[in-house]
């Protein structure tokens, strides 16, 4: 019987296609006290390199997987346990975990399954993961897809039923975006909510996806339980129009790579694989037209066209809103957080326009906090006395 106080650290699943991860280096050492969200190890996959953060605070007692080693998703790579747990018990647990890695047996992994919904004759792809319970829907930004949430979907799925969709024109959804309006994109979100039978859902939207989430909520505020907006579009006139046009127009790796660098505070997240994957997407038939049509929704000359403030006003006060922004965002200025009325504001120090990829643990905390604000009080607890 394994001691319940021994908490395994497992190889995370970053994106649908990830099966193996390689630990490039350990940041935490045996004996280290690690805070929740503290860095544990640098890990690379075929697609991306990232840092694994601790889900909870604890003491690192055993490192199982060596640097340079490939480990299947879900495989135990380290053990955390309080000091009271004996060395013998840890050794036994470590041997067991080591044997699983050596046998090359992939541990049981709940891979999100890809499904499709239909909106206005367009096929919309989405993938769900996690337990029954509150529905969370993740809405990516311009040029992204459901894999933009690769660091967040699985961790959130531990507590919620978490869906991520591909907006029209993106990922494996239909590439036709019609007039490219927020309305067309919002239709796709509603179609996914209908398809999964969600009467109410928490929406998380990034950038353009933030404006889309607000568009959905403004239509039917009763359906939306909470809104977490990550660097949302539409809260001021200023936006990096050069980035948007550069992304839409880039035809080659040489043109695309420097454009993508602007997304992040530090551009080492822009690996060759990230550039190649985006180029492969941009070269699909219909994507060029879609991206240029959506430019017209985002831009009026060099200024923002989307008006998300009007959506916030239409939603009214019932839906909790959090605005999350990276302090080093080079696409949408973080100062625009001030224009998100009635929102709780979370500035993530040092992150760029992609905090959900750059600092996923902090964004996860912000999302969970927002969801908690929407929770109806548990039976027996006094309701807050805010009004009649």
């Amino acid at each position, binding site marked *: 019987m394994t001691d319940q106080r021994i908490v395994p650290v497992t190889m995370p699943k970053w994106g649908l296609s990830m099966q193996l991860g390689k630990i490039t280096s350990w940041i935490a050492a045996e004996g280290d006290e690690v805070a929740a969200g503290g860095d544990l190890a640098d890990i690379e996959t075929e697609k991306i390199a990232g840092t694994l953060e601790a889900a909870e605070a604890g003491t690192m007692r055993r490192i199982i997987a060596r640097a340079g080693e490939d480990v299947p998703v879900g495989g135990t790579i380290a053990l955390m346990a309080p000091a009271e747990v004996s060395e013998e018990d840890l050794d036994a647990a470590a041997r067991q975990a080591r044997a699983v890695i050596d046998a090359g047996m992939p541990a049981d992994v709940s891979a999100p399954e*890809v499904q499709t919904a239909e909106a206005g004759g367009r096929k919309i792809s989405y993938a769900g993961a996690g337990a029954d319970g509150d529905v969370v829907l993740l809405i990516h930004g311009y040029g992204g897809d459901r894999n933009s949430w690769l660091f967040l979907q699985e961790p959130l799925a531990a507590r919620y039923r978490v869906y991520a969709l591909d907006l029209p024109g993106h990922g494996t959804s239909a590439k036709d975006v019609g007039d490219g309006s927020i309305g067309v994109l919002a239709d796709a979100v509603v179609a996914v909510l209908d398809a999964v039978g969600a009467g109410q859902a928490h929406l998380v939207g990034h950038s353009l996806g933030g404006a889309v989430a607000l568009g959905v909520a403004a239509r039917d505020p009763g359906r939306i339980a909470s809104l977490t907006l990550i660097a949302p579009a539409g809260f001021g006139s200023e936006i990096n129009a050069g980035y948007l046009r550069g992304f839409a127009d880039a*035809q080659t790796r040489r043109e695309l790579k420097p454009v993508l660098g602007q997304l992040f505070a530090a551009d080492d997240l822009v690996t*060759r694989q990230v550039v190649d994957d985006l180029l*492969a997407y941009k*070269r*699909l*038939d*219909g994507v060029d037209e879609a991206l240029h049509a959506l430019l017209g929704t985002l831009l009026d000359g060099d200024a923002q066209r989307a008006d998300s403030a009007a959506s916030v006003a239409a939603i009214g006060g019932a839906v909790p809103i959090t605005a999350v922004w990276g302090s080093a965002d080079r696409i949408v200025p973080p100062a625009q957080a001030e224009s998100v009325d009635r929102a709780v504001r979370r500035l993530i120090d040092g992150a760029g326009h992609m905090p959900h990829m750059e600092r996923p643990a902090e964004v996860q905390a912000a999302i969970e906090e927002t969801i908690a604000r929407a929770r109806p009080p548990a039976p027996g607890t006094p309701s807050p006395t805010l009004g009649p």
Partner: protein
Amino acid sequence: MARNITYREALNEALAQEMERDESVIVMGEDNAGGAGSPGAQDAWGGVLGVTKGLYHKFPGRVLDTPISESAFIGAAIGAATAGLRPVAELMFVDFMGVCFDQIYNQAAKFRYMFGGKAVTPVVIRTMYGAGLRAAAQHSQCLYPLFTHIPGLKVVLPATPYDAKGLLIQAIRDNDPVMFFEHKALYDLAGPVPEESYALPFGEANVVREGGDVTIVTLGRMVHTSLEAAGRLAADGVQCEVIDLRTTSPLDEDTVLESVEGTGRLVVVDEAHPRCSIATDISALVARKAFGALQAPIEMVTAPHTPVPFSKALEDLYIPDAQRVANAVKTVTGWTR
């Protein structure tokens, strides 16, 4: 949504999707429909390679079985292209191209130039090349250097299923004559390919592996041989950057030069003969434009200057393998003045 399919299936899908999209796309060649004359057996083969399988019934009247006369049907395809169709002609083995050289290099390649840009010739000539199938001297040659030599032709050599589909779609949409080279040993290679249509631009090399010590420039089947060598060398601490040219005309000079400027060492791996080849072409390019970056003489790994032998033992020795590539890399990393 990408799923794993073979190089053969990727080519078939590219043809089917372009025929669906554009009625002017037709397919012609020997046994492309297969078993003509006996309706039950029609489409049994789908070309000797099986690449056109299923198209005959899907696109009635647009998949043409031709007589065994390359000069006739290649000429017909080129003529049809000038008259508004987009023919994809399959000339089974590149070795047989000799009988239709006039149609290709004197006619198709010259029309745009000689008619002041008023004529376009959107023809694709698909063909099979390379050694390794015990097919002897007249069915195993590479010959892509011959076509690369001729202005007015585009020359394409996909190495993976993903590239095969995207480059064939681009070839069909392109308004110039395209020579499309498929290596015999790659048809069963599987890899991820999106279901949707996509076109890969010509003249963009693919850096298939990054590394800072040596640049390996290669193409076609030799991409896989080079990657195998690079994998082994990495275990010895030598990091190779492997560049797949994808197209030899147009040629992505910048990617080659930038890589050599970073590594200072070049190995070119080419299955063709060593004279007047892609290996000599890339070597000359780097020697002229990146001479100052070179820290060692350029190495070429090629087949020898002989016909492809029929003897199994000799054919295996003839084709460059990963060991020879690794040896060449060690030569350039170990070189001292």
